[in-house]
């Protein structure tokens, strides 16, 4: 009798689990629509959508290998396998041409596609869920007015069991918080606007916040620094390593031009972010800067107070390394407070040289900083073909010792190997 009750109870619990699991993973399909005619597009809404798409950096991931914006197919390596970005042009067969606005909104808010399938959180809906209805509407109008590009996206290449999409429902249960942000009355309207953009469409934390073992952002370490495509996304909170504290004004200039006189050039994945923010309204960029600057305000780490101005004397350096530095680097990176036509800073100001790991410094040396064709900006030639790996290793250690008072890097060789593997 008792055994029967236990068995029945267990079956009952199992059924409830299965049913609630199904309820969690089952989402209705939105019926397909014919793509809206772009002739009827409201210009003001389209313009707002364009600006928000720039702030969201949408075209960075959703770009085709051919360079067609929003056509998708870019491969995104993750610790769980490779994900291919989707085609978000209004192409009926391969894009989102059949998506109603309600379907689009659900994707942005809940991470579910038109047909009810779970979307992987490489698409940062954990941030986009905070976007207002008006902003989601503007983005929808903007994307639906793009030229439809036929581009078949390859299937994702994820490890078992993550290749089973319903698994994502569990992830969402743990990590997706769909609540909208409540304005902080104690802060300025500009700060609140900045927070809305940074936490929402801007999804800055996707790179600048460390992730846990399940690939979710660690809420307790927000903006403590993360990684992006092999690069180090530096901390934006009080752990900042910047030689000079960032002010909101400096950040606004850096974010919209990709360069600042006291901080240097954006590089790696941040390059596209700054190019996009150059297209956003100055008002919104200032708001973003105000919020980001507030994350590290008052940090004033005394260790950062006085980076060595003209460099520390470095003992035990092979004469060859100092000669390579003088011949290859110092012509632009001089200590004379003169950035020259390459806009190169004295390395005493460089954040990359001060970071805990050498990833960024190594990648900048190997790949350089490509010149912009659309605006003036910093430039650095790629040294990956000019100097040998061993020379770059010695050079990185030399620069670290000469221009910072931080402990020597121990990861230079590994970072060079990793970067070379990825085609540097």
């Amino acid at each position, binding site marked *: 009798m008792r055994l029967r009750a236990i068995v029945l109870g267990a079956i009952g619990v199992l059924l409830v689990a299965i049913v609630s699991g199904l309820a969690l993973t089952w989402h209705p399909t939105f019926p397909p629509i014919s793509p809206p005619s772009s002739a009827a597009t409201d210009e003001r809404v389209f313009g707002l959508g364009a600006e928000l798409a720039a702030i969201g950096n949408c075209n960075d991931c959703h770009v085709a290998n051919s360079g067609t914006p929003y056509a998708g197919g870019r491969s995104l390596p993750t610790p769980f396998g490779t994900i291919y970005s989707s085609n978000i042009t209004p192409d009926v067969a391969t894009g989102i041409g059949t998506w109603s606005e309600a379907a689009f909104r659900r994707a942005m808010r809940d991470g579910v596609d038109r047909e009810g399938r779970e979307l992987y959180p490489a698409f940062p809906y954990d941030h986009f869920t905070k976007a207002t209805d008006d902003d989601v509407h503007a983005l929808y109008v903007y994307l639906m007015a793009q030229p439809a590009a036929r581009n078949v996206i390859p299937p994702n290449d994820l490890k078992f069991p993550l290749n089973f999409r319903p698994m994502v429902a569990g992830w969402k249960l743990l990590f997706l918080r769909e609540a909208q942000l409540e304005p902080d009355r104690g802060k300025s309207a500009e700060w609140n606007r900045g927070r809305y953009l940074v936490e929402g469409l801007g999804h800055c934390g996707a790179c600048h916040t460390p992730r846990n073992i399940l690939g979710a952002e660690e809420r307790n370490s927000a903006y403590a620094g993360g990684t992006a495509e092999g690069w180090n996304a530096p901390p934006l909170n009080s752990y900042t390593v910047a030689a000079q504290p960032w002010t909101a004004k400096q950040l606004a200039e850096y974010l919209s031009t990709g360069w600042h006189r006291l901080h240097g050039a954006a590089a790696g994945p941040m390059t596209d972010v700054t190019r996009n923010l150059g297209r956003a309204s100055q008002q919104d960029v200032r708001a973003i800067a105000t919020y980001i600057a507030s994350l590290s305000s008052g940090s004033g780490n005394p260790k950062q107070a006085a980076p060595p101005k003209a460099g520390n004397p470095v003992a035990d350096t092979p*004469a*060859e390394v*100092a*000669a*390579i*530095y*003088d*011949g*290859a680097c110092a*012509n*632009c990176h001089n200590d004379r407070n003169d950035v*020259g*036509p*390459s806009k190169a800073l004295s390395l005493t100001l460089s954040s990359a040289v001060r970071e805990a790991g050498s990833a960024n410094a190594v990648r900048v040396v190997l790949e350089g900083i490509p*010149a912009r064709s659309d605006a003036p900006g910093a*430039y*650095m*030639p790629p*040294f990956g*073909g*000019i*100097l*040998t790996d061993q*020379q770059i290793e010695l050079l990185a250690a030399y620069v670290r010792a000469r221009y910072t008072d931080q402990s020597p890097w121990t990861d230079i060789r590994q970072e060079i190997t990793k970067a070379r593997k990825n085609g540097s």
Partner: protein
Amino acid sequence: MTIALHVNGASREVNADPSTPLLYVLRNDLALHGPKFGCGLGQCGACTVHLDGRATFSCVLPIAAVGDRKVTTLEGLLEDGKPNKLQQAFIDEQAAQCGYCIAGMVMRAQTLLRANPHPTDEEIKQHMRPNLCRCGTHAGILRAIKRAAA
């Protein structure tokens, strides 16, 4: 300080500070005037030479870093003292205005043709991006490279 270099198939010794850019030594010590000084910052490509067959800005390459890697300049492309196929194509297409960038253009283009003997226009444009021409002879340069690839 005496530094040994391997240039255009011969071993050479130069007496210069080890931080001296290779370009200066090629021009001033070895009288190889193919590579030009344009910007001195690795921006324009006028100084392009081959380092173990790879197109390299010689103005940001200190001689201390060259080691035993083989350097080739425009002069090193000559075959029996005559212009090679690519060099001749630049002459035939009159692909120069002032001509200052052309040595670098030839060196850059040669590495493309070695790896890809029949490149498309798009591949040529992509490959030649690091080298700048102020006179605007890009159309002639493109024709010359295509002629050599034909």
